């Protein structure tokens, strides 16, 4: 059964908190395309566990601080 992802994130807010890090800069640090960062921010794409760790590491926080999954 195909369904939309329920994973939400606070990447946009964290980018703003980290010196207005641009999507392109974050993409560069993650080694992905800017479109992928946009898709993740908009909740259209759930990143792999490895990418989720990388994103959390860029902001110096844990995965739980970046990504949320509703009860």
């Amino acid at each position, binding site marked *: 059964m*195909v369904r939309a992802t329920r994973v939400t994130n606070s990447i946009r807010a964290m980018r703003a908190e980290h010196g207005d890090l641009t999507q392109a800069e974050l993409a560069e640090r993650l080694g992905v*395309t800017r479109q*992928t960062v946009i898709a993740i921010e908009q909740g259209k794409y759930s990143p792999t566990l490895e*990418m989720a760790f990388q994103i959390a590491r860029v902001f110096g926080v844990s995965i739980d601080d970046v990504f949320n999954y509703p009860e």
Partner: protein
Amino acid sequence: MSSGQKGVWIELAVAIATYVVYAIVVLGEVGRSSWATVPYAPLMLWAIGASVVATVIVRTVVAAIAPKDADKRDVRDKQIYRFGEYTGHWVLVAGAIAALLLAVIKVDYFWIANEIYLAFFVSSVLAAVAKLSAYGRGLPAW
């Protein structure tokens, strides 16, 4: 638009263009004579070859226009590619089964070859549409 998404658009456009041209030429030949005498084999091979060559040329031109984004494919592009191929795969299976049945009942090679080519075409279009949908609306979670 990522290079992966551009590639899908190119594949879709080329697949439709080459198949439409092939269908128009073959149907024109059928109109003039009979399907039994239509030289479909060289036309089909030309269409398949032209499709491959055109895809390479257009991809090269697009990469030359935007060299910064060329060959930039990440894990999302790979997942979308797999999703699209998986979606289009069932058409190929159905086409293979249909070709098998046509062969069993000894239908002319013309119909078997064209049925298989049609299955490849529909499969590639369906796969491309699924990929573009995943790029635009998001990759579905299973």
